[in-house]
């Protein structure tokens, strides 16, 4: 994928670019808002990663201009500001995701993945999500594995739905908190892990092939055993 990185801190930009290149992405790096904007307007990128505070033109203004020009490229805003309504402001300006510095690289990768690949089962009228032997009926709110019904609590259903729409991709704890609970903060205790282990009990226990895996230092992934 072709990524545009706009980040004024040279060290951070370098580390971002080298990390993403190792993942097989092509990266263009710019250090000011105006350079970043003209690059984004001139080239087709799959994703733009932009720092919120930039010289000349700040990140949110760049995003606003891009959106006003009709560009739909997904934008991930990086920010040193961790405040609750900053995230809201960032999303309101037209960006697609907001990540607070410092962040884990695995978190960044998971979010890039989530932004550049269309979320599964997004079509209107779709009522079934399928991942391998796992089936989720969105109308009857029931889950089955290999035809066997799995009783789920409403929240567990929503977690599983979140995973199934992102099957094969890493989902981080913060993504779950934001996506399933709508929380922009970190609960002190690692509650997410407990929720996941319960869900895992329900969908994997008694079956040979586990579907819900832990990715060390990153989060979780739901994938067909193959």
């Amino acid at each position, binding site marked *: 994928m072709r990524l545009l990185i706009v980040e004024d801190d040279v060290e951070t930009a370098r580390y971002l670019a080298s990390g993403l290149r190792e993942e097989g992405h092509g990266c263009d790096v710019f250090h000011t808002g105006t350079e970043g904007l003209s690059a984004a307007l001139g080239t087709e990128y799959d994703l733009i990663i932009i720092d919120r505070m930039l010289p000349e033109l700040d990140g949110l203004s760049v995003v606003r201009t891009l959106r006003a020009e009709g560009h739909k490229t997904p934008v991930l805003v990086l920010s040193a500001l961790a405040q609750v*309504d900053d995230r809201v402001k960032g999303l309101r300006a037209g960006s697609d995701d907001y990540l607070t510095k410092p962040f884990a690289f695995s978190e960044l990768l998971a979010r890039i993945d989530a932004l550049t690949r269309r979320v599964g089962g997004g079509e209107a009228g779709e009522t079934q999500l399928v991942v391998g032997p796992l089936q989720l009926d969105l109308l009857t709110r029931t889950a089955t594995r290999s035809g066997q019904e799995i009783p789920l609590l409403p929240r567990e259903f929503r977690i599983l739905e979140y995973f199934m729409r992102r099957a094969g991709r890493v989902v981080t704890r913060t993504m779950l908190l934001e996506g399933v609970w709508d929380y922009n903060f970190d609960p002190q205790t690692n509650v997410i892990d407990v929720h996941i282990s319960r869900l895992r009990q329900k969908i994997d226990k008694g079956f040979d092939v586990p579907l819900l895996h832990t990715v060390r230092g990153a989060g979780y992934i739901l994938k067909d055993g193959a």
Partner: protein
Amino acid sequence: MRRAGIGAVWRTTAVRLAALFTLLFSLLLGAGLTAVYIGTIGVVDRQTDATLDAEVRALSERFASGGLSQLVRAIEDRSGRDALADNVYLLVTGSRRRIAGNLSGWPVVEPGAASPEGWISFPVSKRDGAEVKDRQVRALVFDLPQGYRLLVGRDSEDQLEFRRRFFSVVIWVALGTVALGLVSGLFLGRRVLARVERVAEAGERIAAGNLDRRVPVSGRGDEFDRLADAVNAMLDRIEALMQGTRVATDSISHDVRRPLTRVRAELELALRRDLDGEQAQAAMGRALGELDRAVGILNALLNIARAEAGVAGSAWADVDLAQIAGDAAELYQPIAEERGVTLTLDLATPAQTRGEVQLLAQAVANLIDNALKYAPAGTGAVTIATGPGPSLTVSDNGPGIPPEARDTVTERFVRLDAARGGEGSGLGLSLVRAVLRMHGGTLTLEDAQPGLRATITLPPHP
């Protein structure tokens, strides 16, 4: 007081107040004097005019009934040919020839000076002993049939003199009022404002860095003492906050340094020992964990600082504490089960308020987190209930917090069971308190016998 030109003087409150009051007082005085004028000179003027009018009417009736001879006799009777009399009469023919009266000839009146009703005013020279005086006469002119003209007048010099005196008195009074008003206003204003000046001076000195200075209090208990007391209370609070900031900064450096020290140690050891792949991985994993911990502490501190400085913002919305509590409880439900703590919800009472959902949710989550953490494993019982206020109560049956510690536990980094170790950074309750302060609410910690009952109360939904 700085003095730099008229503009600067005008800007002082003392001058403006004095000017304003002088103006007001002058207006009042003007209204009063006008009333006096109308009530005295005005009345006399009108009476004179009425008398002259009646006289003219009587004489013209005499003319109508008795002809010219009767009129002449009547005039002669009344004027007595006395040139010094106060009343003036003159009857002339159509060609202005004098027939009767105590005036030697038709007066010279400036053209246009006569009013349409026939009122005129003219000077008459009168001999008073050796002196000859010019005296002003006010008269009414009346045209009789056959071209005769009648003039009846009255010496108005005394009235005029009274009027002149009256106006000179008015002018002196007005000048005196303005002068006295300005001077006394300035004097009083300066005296009063001098005390304000002292407050301002103290403020400037404090702003310059003299934080332990206070505004002098006179002890009279007046408004200025109240101002000084309020300013001093504010200064006390600022000093306490500064003190708090200093303590917090110390704790921050201490608490952030701890994980950083461990990171450093892990990495340095890994380097020194030239660890093999797997061991190095493990060491770096631990280092990352500690770094995350340091970042977590900083983020929590930022959140607290922001909530403490916070005011109602764009992110405020209508929120239901019951729903927030329900969601948070649901998030913690598996943890409760894992620890063998029963979680009971009583969220029937609606608890509508306004605020920042994320911060309120985090505050509620922190309270539940604590309750689950400190309730006894296996036999713990935690109750979350909404109440009137609106309020939300989280109670547990753990060790509770002793009364003397209930104030300090909400300070940053304060942990009662620090000696026992365990998870936590001592920032949870600080955030709760800051969030509530931001929302105009309160956090109360009470004894749940046994355990802790934490209640947050928020302003009702407007």
